[in-house]
């Protein structure tokens, strides 16, 4: 091995146990979340299925599924990838590795307490913030611990120059604690009065799902696209411009056009949604210049994942733009269009780019080959098919729902009946995503078991090895 490879293998090895801890929990919660989401979607075809069981009523398993996917899978997996990227970009070993390991365990306990809390009826009632207070506190503490390790690694970097990935990831790391603490303090701990609660909940949801995940995902995508093609991110001036315009405009989106709130709030969101065209165009320029010209064969590996995810982010941003603009927004608000945009962002963009980071990091970090390399491509296809079956029917039926709702002569029950076929197709989408998540978990867990076995064999060999003896002449 040359000096470069030795340096990077030491860096990767320092990330081993923290990443295993974070990725393992994330893969498990993704399966749980997608399973619950599939069960929730069954309610529309078989309403009597859980008629006798309060724990599986739609209003409980749907938020439980959403929160398991966001807090159980998306955030911890992304944080693991961020730790690895900071270590590699800074050409330094991961700082304070024991801290993320402890944090991952605290995080998993928090998510478990949260999911069980929602299923037994202790949900807070706020979208994307349904975890009861004890769970939120555990997750917040765990997040701060991981952020400490991330910032320590960043501070200790040998390569001092900042890459575009650094800007996005640092901003994303900073974003979450502020929005999460604000939302929990103003909505759960000391609730504000009346519709102010709804406004803060919408602000939090947009800043978590679109802005924070956008920053963490784009940073990861820029890192992967440049690392795998061994070519830096192109058009860095456009990337800087995209960064600034994104963090200035995107946090102002998210207020629905028809909400019973002072008119200046949805008006501000409408303007911000329109202005989002600017960072979207800048990102397109960076993306096209970075990808076209890179001589990388796309074989269903992490490079393909990262390319697809960035394109999906641009689509998700355009969908949010449509939802947020005053004329079209008034039609599609309160329909399935909103959830379809969220699923595009979560699965089309964020889950796929985080999985790309997991696959790119895992083999190097573990020092082992992936147990099922073919699953990488199969998971990519499962996720793409699942995404298409989930997002396209829901977006289509949301637009139809919206236009039909404008006509009061169409009975509401007819409108609901008209959505059922799209919901049936979306259930198939959940199944494909679940299949993909099982493949991800297979790779992570088999690799973990192999590594544990390797450690056990090493220890056993060391214990049972004959003692060195030296003859002492008297």
């Amino acid at each position, binding site marked *: 091995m040359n000096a470069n490879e030795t340096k990077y293998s030491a860096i990767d090895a320092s990330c081993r146990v923290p990443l295993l801890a974070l990725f393992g929990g994330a893969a498990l919660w993704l399966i749980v979340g997608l399973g619950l989401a599939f069960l929730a979607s069954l309610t529309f075809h078989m309403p009597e299925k859980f008629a*006798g069981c*309060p724990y599986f*009523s739609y209003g409980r398993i749907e938020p439980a599924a959403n929160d398991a996917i966001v807090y159980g899978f998306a955030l911890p997996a992304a944080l693991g990838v961020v730790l690895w990227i900071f270590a590699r970009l800074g050409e330094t070993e991961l700082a304070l590795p024991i801290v993320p390991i402890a944090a991952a365990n605290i995080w998993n306990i928090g998510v478990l307490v949260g999911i069980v809390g929602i299923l037994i009826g202790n949900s807070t009632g706020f979208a994307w913030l349904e975890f009861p207070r004890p769970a939120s506190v555990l997750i917040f503490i765990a997040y701060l611990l991981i952020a400490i390790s991330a910032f320590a690694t960043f501070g200790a970097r040998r390569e001092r120059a900042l890459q575009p990935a650094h800007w996005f990831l*640092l901003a994303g790391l900073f974003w979450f604690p502020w929005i999460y603490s604000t939302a929990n303090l103003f909505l759960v701990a000391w609730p504000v009065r009346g*519709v102010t609660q709804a406004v803060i909940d919408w602000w939090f949801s947009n800043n978590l799902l679109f802005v924070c995940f956008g920053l963490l995902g784009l940073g990861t995508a820029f890192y992967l696209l440049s690392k795998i093609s061994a070519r830096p991110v192109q058009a860095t001036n456009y990337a800087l411009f995209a960064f600034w315009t994104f963090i200035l405009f995107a946090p102002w989106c998210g207020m629905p056009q028809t909400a019973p709130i002072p008119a200046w709030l949805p008006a501000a969101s409408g303007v911000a949604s329109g202005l989002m065209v600017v960072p979207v165009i800048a990102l397109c320029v960076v993306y096209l210049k970075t990808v076209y010209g890179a001589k990388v064969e796309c074989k269903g590996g992490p490079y393909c994942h990262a390319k697809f995810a960035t394109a999906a982010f641009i689509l998700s941003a355009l969908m949010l733009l449509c939802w947020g603009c005053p004329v079209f927004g008034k039609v599609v608000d309160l329909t399935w269009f909103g959830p379809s945009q969220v699923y595009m962002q979560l699965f089309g963009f964020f889950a796929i780019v985080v999985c790309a980071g997991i696959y790119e990091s895992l083999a190097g970090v573990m020092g082992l080959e992936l147990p099922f390399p073919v699953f990488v491509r199969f998971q990519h296809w499962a996720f793409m098919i699942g995404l298409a079956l989930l997002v396209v029917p829901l977006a289509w039926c949301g637009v139809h729902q919206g236009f039909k709702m404008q006509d009061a002569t169409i009975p509401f*029950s007819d409108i609901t009946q008209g959505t059922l076929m799209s919901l049936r197709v979306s259930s198939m989408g959940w199944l494909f995503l679940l299949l993909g998540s099982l493949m991800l978990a297979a790779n992570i867990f088999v690799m973990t078991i192999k590594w544990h076995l390797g450690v056990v064999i090493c220890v056993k060999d060391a214990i049972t090895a004959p003692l060195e003896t030296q003859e002492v002449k008297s």
Partner: protein
Amino acid sequence: MKSGFSVFLAAFIGLGLSWCGFVLGPVLQLGAGKQTMVLNSSEVYPNQRPGDATLGLQVYRAYGCAACHTTQVGQDGMICDVVLAGKNSAAVSNLVASLKLTGLTIDDAGLVSSKIAAAGGKMETHIIPVGADIARGWGMRHSVAEDFLWDNPVQLGSVRIGPDLANVGLRYDAAWEYQHLLDPKSQTPNSAMPPYKFLFESAAGGSGKLVPSEDAKNLVAYLLSLRVNVPLHDAPYSTVAPKK
């Protein structure tokens, strides 16, 4: 950007601005919300929900009813009708014959009213909110911030998988609500709503009948308290039905 500190500063500015706009601003504007006066009346609005309805809101939250139902009525605008009141002179009747009196904007209604008043006539202006939700019978006016003053947590909902419930207390009675929770399809044949059989328990005495549990009673009390049929300055409408 050259240093971590400059990235931190950029993120602080971006998030700080939106925090000021969408958190601090609404807290200052709406956070100290108080009751308001009912239009043309000395009554205050809203009154606190009765005790069992307040408990019912917690049942609504615990079962995640807001995942399928919204409690917010929308409105596209309003039209005004000017209607003569009481006895009027022949001159006023002649004037009125030459004026458009129905389907006016609020400014035009003001002009017409002042012309009739100048001619010595008496009239009333009826305000009629228009919009798909209103036409569907889901409410008399759009929902405003005051309607949710006492609710904690506010459960506006985000998707209309089921109908809007802002005025469900005006549409159905307790018996209908209990039957609907037990078996939605018995009242709405095409309903996609699952039955909530676990909200009911067997009656004491082994008669085999199902009676509502404490949760069901509180939930129905909350649903019956959902009524937004009071005109306000922010959301006026005429309580007198205009003549057709």
